[in-house]
């Protein structure tokens, strides 16, 4: 006896009505009605791992040229803690950027010549030059950016959103992660699966990594020798067998499992369709640059990000490694900028021309900034920069963010913030706000506490948002 699969699913749907809320076949989020009117439906977070130097990209400090190689005044440093890498350095020679800055667009934003493509879209961007964080080492700082807490164990921002808002797409995960290796510092700064983990949230909210491999999602492909037709038939048989058990046990979990197999089957089609760039016109590659044809590059991932956004994936996060320029900064940062500049700008333009930028929030930035003084020897054409948590620059666009805005300001050394500081909790609160979520209300009770992404802090930076 073979049960009709559709009939089975109908029956299953009936019994599962109540408990599906608690279980895996549900794609809706915990927040039934948004706390605010959302201005964004999804987020693309272009995470620059290793910490790009604000001093060489976006935070122009002409005064430094005159102070070249002079010791950083104590009045600027103000006893700020240093990493063990430079704490014992005897001198802190000021290292002006080697790169040329110019003002761009109507907004007059300063951008260095490392980012020629970004320079062209500055009027679509909102620069926040007054970002700051509490952490001075990569692991805790990235963990803090991702989870709102420096130690591993809490849910990542994408997991919070998947939990809060659910998915708009039944064939793709709601939180997708893609990684690329920069050409700057190849060996440094590892990433960790937990950066997109769900912490104490149920693990179905964890980010799913899309890889530049035969299987973009782990175990996606059928084993060699099993084709789609065989798999379809296999799933029908599996449903039939599970249905027999379902009748026996009256356990809605059985139907839920069958439903997950159907979702898996749909992913076997939808993911390859998503990652297949062969139908993209040549103009796409002109826009994103030639790297976009090489799977696994930042450019290819940016293009995939647009395709994921088109399909309603809630949180798309790219990690680009290699921004940790302790030494040899000029050479390395050229490579890193080349990796990311064109594709980042292309993504903004592409979303815009497709009408997606209005409801897609894009964030570009790393985990902290870099020091104005040189780590190691300062020469005419070489220097390094250590970690600097006190200020750094990120940019955002889309999804209700004001465009052509420069928010916040740092001192002449890009060492201290002089106006409108924004910390990581504030950034998180603001991101949630664009999605219609009140960061104080998106909570999960664990270990006796109502946890939230912003811990006990966070201020929405309304100044960078369009009036609701």
């Amino acid at each position, binding site marked *: 006896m*073979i049960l009709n699969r559709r009939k089975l699913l109908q029956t299953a749907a009936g019994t599962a009505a109540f408990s599906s809320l608690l279980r895996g076949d549900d794609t809706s989020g915990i927040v039934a009605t948004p706390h605010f009117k959302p201005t964004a439906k999804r987020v693309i977070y272009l995470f620059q791992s290793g910490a790009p130097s604000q001093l060489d990209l976006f935070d122009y400090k002409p005064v430094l040229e005159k102070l070249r190689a002079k010791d950083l005044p104590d009045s600027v440093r103000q006893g700020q803690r240093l990493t*063990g890498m430079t704490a014992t350095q005897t001198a802190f020679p000021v290292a002006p950027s080697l790169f040329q800055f110019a003002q761009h667009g109507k907004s007059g934003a300063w951008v260095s010549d490392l980012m020629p493509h970004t320079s062209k879209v500055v009027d679509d961007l909102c620069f926040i030059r007054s970002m700051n964080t509490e952490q001075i080492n990569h692991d805790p700082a990235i963990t803090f950016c991702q989870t709102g807490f420096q130690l591993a164990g809490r849910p990542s921002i994408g997991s919070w959103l998947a939990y809060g808002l659910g998915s708009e797409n039944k064939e793709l995960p709601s939180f997708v992660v893609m990684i690329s290796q920069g050409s700057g510092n190849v060996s440094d700064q590892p*990433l960790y699966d937990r950066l997109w983990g769900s912490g104490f949230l149920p693990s179905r909210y964890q980010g799913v990594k899309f890889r530049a491999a035969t299987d973009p999602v*782990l175990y996606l*492909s059928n084993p060699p020798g*099993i084709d789609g037709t065989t798999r379809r038939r296999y799933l029908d048989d599996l449903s039939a067998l599970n249905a027999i058990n379902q009748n026996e046990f009256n356990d809605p979990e*059985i139907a839920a499992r069958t439903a997950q197999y159907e979702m898996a089957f749909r992913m076997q089609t939808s993911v390859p369709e998503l990652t297949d760039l062969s139908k993209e016109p040549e103009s796409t590659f002109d826009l994103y640059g030639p790297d976009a044809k090489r799977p696994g590059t930042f450019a290819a991932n940016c293009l995939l990000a647009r395709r994921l956004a088109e399909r309603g994936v809630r949180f798309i996060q790219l990690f680009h490694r290699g921004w940790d320029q302790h030494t040899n900064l000029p050479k390395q940062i050229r490579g890193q900028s080349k990796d990311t500049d064109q594709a980042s700008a292309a993504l903004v333009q592409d979303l815009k021309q497709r009408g997606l930028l209005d409801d897609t929030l894009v964030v570009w930035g790393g985990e902290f900034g870099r020091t104005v003084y040189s780590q190691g020897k300062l020469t005419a054409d070489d220097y390094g920069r250590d970690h600097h948590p006190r200020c750094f620059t990120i940019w955002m666009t889309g999804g209700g963010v004001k465009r052509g805005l420069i928010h916040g300001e740092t001192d002449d050394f890009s060492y201290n913030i002089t106006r409108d500081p924004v910390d990581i909790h504030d950034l998180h609160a603001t991101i949630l706000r664009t999605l219609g979520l009140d960061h104080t209300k998106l909570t999960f*009770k664990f270990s006796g506490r109502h946890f939230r992404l912003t811990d006990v802090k966070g201020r929405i930076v309304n100044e960078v948002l369009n009036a609701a």
Partner: protein
Amino acid sequence: MPRFSLLIFAALPGLLGAQTIEFNRDIRPIFSDRCYTCHGPSSSTRRSPLRFDTEEGAKQKLGNHFALVPGKPGESELLRRVTAGNTPLRMPPVSSGPALTEAEVSLLRRWIEQGAVWEKHWSFIPPKPVVPPAVSDAAWVRNPIDAFVLARLDKEGLRHSGEAPRETLLRRVTFDLTGLPPTPAEVDAFLADKAPNAYEKVVDRLLASSRYGERMAMRWLDAARYADTNGYQTDAERYMWRWRDWVIEAFNRNMPYDRFTVEQLAGDLLPNPTLDQRIATGFNRNHRGNGEGGIVPEEYAVEYVIDRVDTTSTVFLGLTAGCARCHDHKYDPIAQKEYYQLYAFFNSLPERGNAQKYGNSPPLMAAPTPPQQAYLQEFDTRIAAAKAKFDALQSRVDAGLKAWKPAPGSQWFTARELKNQWSADSTVFDGKNVRDLGDNADFSFQDPFTISLRVKAASGDGALISRAKDEPEGPGYSLVLANGKLQANFVLRWLDDAIRVETTTDFPLNDWHHVALTWDGSRYASGVTIYVDGVAQPLKFNVDYMNQDFRQKEPLRLGGGLGTRFRGQLDEVRIYRNALPVNEIRLLAIADTLDTLPSTSEKLRRAYLDQGAPADVQIAWKTWLGLTEDRAKFAATLPTVMVMEELPTPRDAFLLQRGSYERPGQKVSRDVPAALPPLSPDAPRNRLGFAKWLTDPKNPLPARVAVNRFWQMYFGTGIVKTVEDFGSQGEWPSHPELLDWLATEFIRTNWDVKALQKTIVMSATYRQASKASPEAAEKDPNNRLLSHAPRFRLPAEMVRDQALLASGLLAEKLGGPSVKPYQPAGLWKELSGGEDYRQDHGADLYRRSMYTFWKRASPPPMMSNFDAAGREACMVRENRTNTPLQALDLMNDVTFVEAARRIAQRMLNEGGAAPADRLAFGFRLVTSRRPTPAEAGVLSNALRYNLDRFQTDPSAAAKLLEQGESARDPKLNPSELAAYSTVASLMLNLDEAVTRQ
């Protein structure tokens, strides 16, 4: 999920019936969740004198009114406030969250009506022996567990279920006690055993199996955040598997739980601790260690202690003490000061905040396995015998030595472990030249070595010998003169990854002196010794932070290095592959030729033994020496484990304001929270005293917390669902009296772990069928009342282990280093750019999943897909989700594709000749039962379909059968094998296959 937290009330309709309101069950959770933030235990956030965590605080007079007037809801301000709608009067304030629900208000009202009776928080009241209640169906009751469960079902008007079918029951109990399913033979034996105690015999057999210890250890490893890597940035390998094996062994030997607790927390402080007792303390060294360059060590030294306190509190006390790190606990009676009093028990070990990036960080110890211990013993016996044999020859040695006349000018230096030697007496170093000694002395930072040479220095600056970049502070190692002092450098990156030590007195110039440098491979400055003329010099440690290998592709340079050049003469350069002890260095320092030495000279004696003695004496001498050296070499290969160790003088502990290492406040001393029983006055104020306090039957928490966690293993959910939180934010127990009965019984039986497991699995409650009646499904959809046995998905380990067992691939071996089974290529590399996962081959592909190498940054993907705990921090709650990634994994992961192929092979070879029999055989391997006719129908249709397909397309069959490294039976027809293989995969993917029901 918060929005479901109140469903338990809906699920348990009786709660809202006419019964007495219980403060702890019904009222405290409301106060705690909705009021404590401003009216709770935390003095810093309390907004008014009114507080709901103490009776006095809640019932005090407030101006001209009372929040609570027992018996008079109308006069109770509390009730007025919580029903004040959206007005400024409302509590909790409109700004801080939604109003109380009607159900909550009704509970409060009735509680006040009934007299507002206050109780101490339930879990802080010690459990008392409870008499099992009378029930409707006494015949069903097999032990007191059932009386408690049934009494509750009676109250809610639900019925219990009958016993599960025998195959189901056997499968359930075999998974629960050993983590593996029964074999068909075991099923047959049980079905055939008609003895009334057949089931009990099975239980006893399973409890005696060594698989039991492995199964019990699985969840303990989650709680203890066990992993094979250090975590944080580099996340390189560490070695804690000896501790993991200790856990398995402890369960298998049925170590009482109180001893299990004491040994893991304080085994090192027991009188004359055994090796095992010290290994046990690895429990609190399983936390992550940060080796990232440039961290502030003090910051992480604090984090490690915090982790120990939080883990210990969660695992043994069921308290979320960590909340009190930054401020007084908002819900439970743990003041911030008390948190740091606990902290003070765990901060006194010789550890550093900057952990080793690679390998174990001190304190650590060699932890030989039992066979290795036996081997060491054997060494000692053989060494003693060899020494005795040599000692017996002493008179001949003495006589021979007296008569020995070495040739004039002859020399001797020990050649054992000698790697290279050079003489350079004619070279004069003039501050410009350097002698290239080639690609020699290429030591890594974990290799011990010795450099010995004679030096006549003309200036107090310049490198004597180096294998390093020839630039200031260059990476590599070097022995140099700097400002008149001898200085040794071991550098990868100057300052944050380097060691520099130097002597404190000026090195004498213009005379020949012997200089030696030894490095013991420990990666600490304390492992460096500099000798001058055979005397170890006092050293100043300038930099002591070596984390990565200093090894460089540079030549060994004599008379130069680090951009400096030596002036003077150098001679008799010797490099040894070990760190020579002082007595050997002393001999190297003696320059005199043999013929000038007195007969009492040790050097002469050694030379005689090497060169002049009769052959049998030389052999006896070399045998003894060789064995001693071999033993040392063997000892260096022993596995190590990180352990707890107590500093002779306890480190001071301070309250850290806002939990920050940078803001120490008042000094605190070791103590336990005042809300719990005090430490016994005669107990030592250290971890041992603390551990004994935990296991004192007067302590209300540890026994309850332990039995509740065991309960979770069998029923999917604890009696207290929040297994990690027995505080006021935790969930009220579904069966409070049962919890107390189990806890007191556990203590009464001297914490007999196996006896407790047996009591649970022998109960009628456990043995019920898992089919939900429509009534139960409606009234109690989460089955918290246990009207039937729960069905839940197997833990990740068991999903894989079952496939390995059914396929016959499982390689059973207890313990040992972790293994690396199949994993998709590139997962490690794409995260770090570094080395990728190197998969094992052969039997190590098929070990039980608890032995799979656990990298914190990139856990085994199959384990993560199936909800395994992350092992970053303590996790005691079992999680289960149901995702499409699990489906993809089970269908397509080579682990399961290969297992399916091997099950197919077994179906064809062992399942009989008829397809139906073969399918039934395979079905039984996977589900422990025979298929029903309906199921058999689906399976045989599936087989026919696949046979057709693979016979039409044999190349598809060939491709499928290539999956996995295990051999396939060449006698079998490939198309047939592929078809059975696909059906076997279907079986492994059944809901029933991955479910314990």
